[in-house]
């Protein structure tokens, strides 16, 4: 596998199935003021596998819902449309991407890291009074390109992993050298094809290199959350490495040391519960 031979393998990423229509509808509905919970609940209920997953998660202790949630309408009422949407998005992504069989790629570690970044991004956004749901979804999907590679072009990812281990470099460097592109670019392409909003697509594409902006953005938040999740060593990867952190992105958040320490604590304490709830 070389950078020259990689493009043909990467074409396979285009063969990833679409997300279920209900998820696309949900993504679209979330950005509207006039969204009807009844319509969403009815739509979700038509997809039995997704509905069952949403109900199972709604009944897990992570969400702390008293009593038993038995319908999607009730789940939306108790957890909120955005939380249910998040649960459904995870279920849909894990269903839509064929289970990878790629030497060196550990699906459980992949999801643990993604969930950690999602939680940390949500906590940063809440601290800064920004949209926590967009931050959560962007964090959850930030490495989507790596999952897509593992599933559709395992030889490409495997060669990148081999190169990373051999040179002990960052995965981003290994991917660029091996494939001539990287998981951030590829993940953004998949997310755009799956109709995720522009803020989420940009956060995926730029999470390793946030651009200079006057104010803090979702890109900054996911970039920082990614570093924090690696630094907390939550995925259980023996070759874990904290990627470089953009000082300007950090400074734009204006986080105090106390707030930063609290972020570490909250993220670390929430990961196990959410991973268990999502069965990832």
């Amino acid at each position, binding site marked *: 596998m070389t950078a020259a031979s990689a493009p043909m393998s990467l074409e396979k990423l285009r063969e990833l199935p679409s997300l279920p229509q209900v998820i696309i509808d949900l993504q679209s509905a979330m950005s509207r003021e006039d969204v009807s919970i009844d319509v969403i609940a009815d739509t979700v209920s038509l997809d039995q596998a997704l509905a069952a997953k949403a109900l199972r998660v709604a009944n897990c202790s992570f969400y702390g819902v008293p009593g038993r949630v038995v319908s999607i309408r009730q789940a939306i009422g108790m957890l909120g449309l955005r939380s249910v949407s998040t649960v459904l998005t995870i279920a849909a992504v894990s269903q839509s991407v064929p289970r990878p069989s790629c030497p060196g790629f550990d699906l459980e570690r992949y999801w643990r890291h993604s969930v950690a970044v999602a939680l940390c991004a949500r906590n940063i956004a809440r601290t800064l009074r920004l949209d926590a749901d967009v931050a959560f979804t962007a964090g959850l999907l930030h490495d989507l390109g790596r999952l897509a590679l593992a599933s559709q072009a395992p030889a490409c990812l495997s060669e990148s992993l081999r190169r990373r281990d051999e040179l002990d470099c960052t995965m981003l460097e290994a991917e660029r050298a091996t494939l001539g592109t990287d998981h951030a670019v590829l993940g953004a392409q998949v997310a755009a094809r799956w109709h995720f909003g522009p803020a989420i697509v940009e956060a995926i594409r730029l999470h390793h290199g946030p651009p200079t902006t006057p104010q803090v953005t979702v890109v900054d938040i996911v970039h920082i959350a990614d570093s924090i999740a690696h630094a907390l060593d939550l995925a259980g990867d023996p070759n874990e490495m904290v990627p470089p952190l953009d000082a300007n992105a*950090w400074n734009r958040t204006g986080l105090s040391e106390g707030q930063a320490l609290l972020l570490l604590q909250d993220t670390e304490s929430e990961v196990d519960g959410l991973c268990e709830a999502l069965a990832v």
Partner: protein
Amino acid sequence: MMIDEVATCTPSGNTPGSGTVLLRDTPAQGDRLEWLFREALRRQHVHPLMELLRRYRSQEGA
């Protein structure tokens, strides 16, 4: 908590400039936290999160 873009440091207990070999080859014997930040240590950059993590872990252990 503002941070500088670039500063320099060396891994504790290592001779300046020798971090690459020590951190690459003996992760199990070294400090796991330094192992996680080996890329920054190798480049002799201070990773802004490294000290924060140290304080967080020491606060946890207190």
